[in-house]
């Protein structure tokens, strides 16, 4: 049996991942902002086969509440096999450029809140000496681009934090997985025109489950993003700064 904590459980990728784990007789503990959606997802997971599915409402930018909510989750689940962190938002770059407040809020949502949660979770996992921490970041975190560098900076910060955490927890038997999806067709990206590079959340979810099983360090998903990002990372800055990306 598996005990799984999902943070940002109402995100499309998280929900699809929850559905896959539900088939494996798991105990789920879901955190998110929208109570109605959480309840629907928990109920759905139980009908799909989850042993149990509890949920708790949490606004991730309300840092003061993190310790209490996490404690309750740890108490309910016991030994945790997997923590999946999936919450985030897609900022409007233009709006960020016009407002410090918006920029800081987006950095909080997409990086700082995750880091705050991970600080507490890491200690708990270190203590139990097993399990996996999987965090959804983004290919956007690999290099800053004019079209969405606030989001990129936040996700990049999270990725570097995860590298350090992986390094620290490796010898304690805790595994850290950094999930970097490319374009995913979700409500968060509803406004975008979709093309051949776009993937369904179901596809991403399947690859997450596989990567957790195989204890991968970094998952570019779908796979072709590892090649795209290899190229993007290696374009010299003198050239890169002139590109419209």
């Amino acid at each position, binding site marked *: 049996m598996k005990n799984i904590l999902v943070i940002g459980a109402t995100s499309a990728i998280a929900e699809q991942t929850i559905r896959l784990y539900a*088939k494996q007789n798991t105990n789920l503990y879901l955190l998110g902002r929208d109570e109605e959606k959480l309840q*629907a*997802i928990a*109920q*759905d997971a139980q*009908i*799909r086969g989850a042993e149990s599915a509890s949920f708790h409402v949490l606004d991730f930018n309300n840092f003061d509440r993190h310790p209490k909510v996490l404690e309750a989750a740890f108490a309910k689940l016991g030994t945790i096999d997997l923590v999946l962190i999936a919450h985030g938002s897609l900022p409007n770059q233009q709006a960020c450029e016009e407002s410090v407040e918006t920029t800081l809020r987006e950095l909080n949502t997409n990086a700082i809140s995750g880091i705050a949660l991970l600080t507490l979770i890491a200690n708990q996992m270190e203590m139990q000496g097993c399990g996996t921490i999987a965090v959804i970041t983004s290919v956007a975190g690999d290099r800053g681009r004019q079209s969405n560098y606030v989001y990129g900076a936040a996700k990049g910060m999270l990725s570097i934090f995860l590298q350090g955490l992986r390094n620290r927890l490796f010898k304690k038997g805790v595994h850290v997985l950094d999930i970097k999806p490319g374009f995913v067709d979700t409500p968060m990206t509803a406004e975008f025109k979709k093309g051949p590079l776009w993937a369904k959340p179901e596809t991403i979810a399947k690859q997450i489950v596989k990567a957790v099983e195989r204890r991968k360090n970094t998952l570019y998903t779908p796979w072709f993003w590892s090649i795209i990002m290899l190229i993007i990372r290696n374009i010299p800055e003198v050239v890169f700064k002139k590109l419209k990306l």
Partner: protein
Amino acid sequence: MKLSGWGQYPTAQAESRVVHSKRKVSELLAETQSAHLIPRGLGRSYGDSALAEQILNTQHLNHFMAFDPSTGEISCAAGVSFAELLEIFVPRGWFLPVTPGTKFVTVGGAIASDVHGKNHHLDGCFSQHVLSIKLALASGEIIDCSPSEHPELFHATCGGMGLTGVILQATFRLLPIESALIEERSYKTKNLAETLELFEEHEASTYSVAWIDCLSTGDKLGRSLLMLGEHATRGELEAHKNSKLNVPINMPNLLLNRYSIQAFNTLYYHKQTQTHAQRSVHYEPYFYPLDGIHNWNRLYGKNGFTQYQFVLPKEAGLEGMTRILKEIAQSKRGSFLAVLKAFGAANENYLSFPTEGYTLALDFKIDAALFPFLEELDHIVLDYGGRLYLTKDARMSETTFKQSYPLWETFQEVRTRYGADQVFNSLQSQRLGL
């Protein structure tokens, strides 16, 4: 974007809105200005019934709300597909009470089309296993309807082709099974009379369907393979696996022609050498033989095809079918697969297709001479008091529709009462004068 039904004919420009929650559907309906909006699930109806200026895509309304393992009663959102239901519930010993020939349909679509299956003669249409539905009306208001609560709205919505509102959720009863296998018995018949006789003789069989060689003539006219089925009591409760076969692009128009279709039909008829055979087969190839090839509709080429499915009353069965099969054989327009089935009694829904008698479904590639030919067939069908299945239809005339669906006025009254006629209109409903 350009959209079409499964037959790839007709195609139309449509703005597609994906909805992720019931609340979103309500909001969208409350604010929409469009008078040409239609819900769409997996797009498996063949013609223009899920085409309109604005499409409300319900595929992502796919949560399960409740399941009672003591009764098999399930509540789920309208976008849940039959494939997903089978994947989850076959291993626990439950099956769909009624299933069409593909599992890639949504619960909402199955209700809107009031689909039937190989057990229609005993178990009726899908809606007859539905206990209640949640429907979003044109105003955005959400109401429950069932055979006892707002019954007229329930009977208009089941088989109502999405024209009464957006089906959000349904509660229905699954069928208990002991095995994922079907005990299949098949009979090879010499002609149509023998086929119809066998249907009668085996009316106690849970499932029955016949494949007809529609290009055979003379005293072989209507020779068939009749396949009967029962749920097995032994064997594992293993769900289907997803097929990897796919037709990636439209095939050349010439692939399916008179000769290739005739060759296929002859081979298919002779694949069974004995007159009577028996085997255990998984439900997947038994119910969904074509689901094994994704996008098989592309075999017909980019001009698309239409499925002509009609029903004739029982008393007209042999004579009417003979006349139609003769017309088809004469026209040399073979159908790749022609499927014959005996229907049981009709239900109370205003636009549900099945009525007691025999139904035949044929696929025809679209070409310039096809529609005049189908008009002729329409006349024969009407002469015998039959009608065509709206889910497959892409071309019937308003007159044909109104003559063969006598309850269309009741349907329209209910639609008007709930303001649905001001919002929910598809290319099909406009063509049919609804």
